């Protein structure tokens, strides 16, 4: 009976993780394929990496995306931390349910809904206030902040709940004003969570196709938009090379985070 269970346990885990990881591994493997036919292996080659670095369109799209992602992550962390702290520590207030709904809906609501609604906001603002005049990097950034903020709120809110309140209470009892308590006591304890939230926001912004499609304008083609317009027609080997580089960066980043955590633990 026990052995059968062990077998089942390993079978489930191996099949499950194979399902999650085979696509990722196949991307990396085929990026080194010599053939133009992405699915037929004909030999090891780095030529797709070379053609990737000659691809000015893809590179400038990547640069724009990195800038938008960094600005998105920073703004989302600032606003999301504020909103998450309110959710965790202000108790119930009037309109609490609406607040929870607004703050968590972007997590699940289909991206096309977020995209069209943000676009209509900017179009209406443009015609009523005369600003923003057109669409571009700025509007993409604003849309991404709205999306990422929801994730930041979830992370911050659950971390604030786990904090030891006695530290805050001690500071308050010693006469520190609440705002000072927040910046001097709460925020430092949140630092690892904020870093994680920043990185997650960065990743989400770097990956978004749908919201960017609605909010982009002439001259503002982000990396996912460029990739999407290429791959909807089929396989593109230079995209495999790009994917392999991004996956490599994530793997290195994860290993680094793991190493830092272990060193601190020791």
């Amino acid at each position, binding site marked *: 009976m026990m052995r059968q269970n062990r077998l089942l346990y390993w079978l489930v885990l191996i099949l499950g993780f194979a399902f999650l990881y085979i696509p990722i591994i196949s991307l990396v493997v085929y990026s080194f394929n010599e053939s133009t036919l992405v699915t037929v292996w004909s030999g090891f080659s780095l030529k797709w990496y070379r053609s990737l670095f000659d691809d000015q369109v893809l590179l400038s799209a990547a640069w724009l995306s990195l800038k938008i992602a960094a600005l998105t992550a920073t703004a989302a962390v600032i*606003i999301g931390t504020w909103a998450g702290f309110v959710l965790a520590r202000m108790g119930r207030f009037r309109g609490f349910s609406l607040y929870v709904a607004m*703050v968590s809906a972007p997590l699940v609501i*289909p991206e*096309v809904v977020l995209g069209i609604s943000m676009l209509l906001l900017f179009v209406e603002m443009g015609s009523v206030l005369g600003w923003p005049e057109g669409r571009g990097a700025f509007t993409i950034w604003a849309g991404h902040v709205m999306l990422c903020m929801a994730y930041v709120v979830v992370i911050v809110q659950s971390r604030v709940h786990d904090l030891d309140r006695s530290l805050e209470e001690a500071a308050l009892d010693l006469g520190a004003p609440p705002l000072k308590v927040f910046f001097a006591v709460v925020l430092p304890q949140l630092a690892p969570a904020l870093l994680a939230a920043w990185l997650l926001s960065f990743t989400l912004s*770097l990956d978004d196709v749908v919201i960017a499609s609605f909010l982009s304008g002439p001259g503002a083609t982000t990396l996912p938009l460029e990739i999407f317009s290429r791959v909807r027609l089929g*396989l593109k080997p230079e995209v495999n090379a790009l994917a392999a580089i991004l996956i490599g960066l994530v793997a290195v980043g994860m290993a680094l985070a793991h190493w830092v955590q272990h060193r601190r633990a020791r």
Partner: protein
Amino acid sequence: MKLSRSFLPPARALAIVPPYLWLVLFFLLPFLLVVKISLSGMQFGVPPYTPLAELEEGVLRLTLQARGYIMLFTDNLYVATYLNSLKVAAITTLACMVIGYPIAYCIARSAPGVRNLLLLGVILPFWTSLLLRVYAWIGILRNDGLLNHALMWLGLIDTPLEIYRTDLAVYIGLVYAYLPFFILPLYAHLVKMDMRLLEAAYDLGARPWRAFVSVTLPLSRNGVIAGAMLVFIPTVGEYVIPELLGGANTLMIGRVMWTEFFNNTDWPMAAAVTCVMVLLLLVPLALFQHNQVRQLEQR
């Protein structure tokens, strides 16, 4: 002294109001605008819709056009697309449950060290681009792709299976993309479970299957619901995955809305499609919201 109480009314309001206003301005208001545009007429110009209210010689004229909605409910294609989107989302959610539950269960019952590593394994794909991971499936599912090569090499099939650009490919892509969203909340519930309850069931003579059905399953119910909503709601409006993996006849409401908006530049129609989509999602959204509030209150 609690921090919440130390913020006296003016300070407390100062803390609450800014994020509240921000959300009203950037989430609620845009959505109300979608409702508004869905009732206006289409025109060629900038913006490509007519205003709802016009002031002409001291007379305020309000024009509401239900054209989009009438078309939605009379054209069978739209009705079929909505029904199909709900079906696709339901089957995807069910598949995530069947595949995800055993995975979450096995991770939760692993030794603590192994558990964290396995959990990292589930989270890690989140950090790589979903677009690129879905793209990878094109290479796997194509007629000359990895899967067909493997199956033919094993001698299981003689002719390649047609999967790429079919509904099956869309299901595979959706389950693949949303599986971690189901596993994570479920895992959080399973790992918190009081194991003494299970031991009590065993001591009372329950067989493993019986103990699972009458103890573990009911205790993980909220995790299953949370995970199911995280899969079902976004799947209904999914655009990228059906566009990349599905065929021309894979009917999904997100794709229809996209076509109305970008190809036909019929913004009022696209807005009406969106409104009805959200209306259909109201019950699952309420369920999700209920879950969120309860989680906040349980702490």
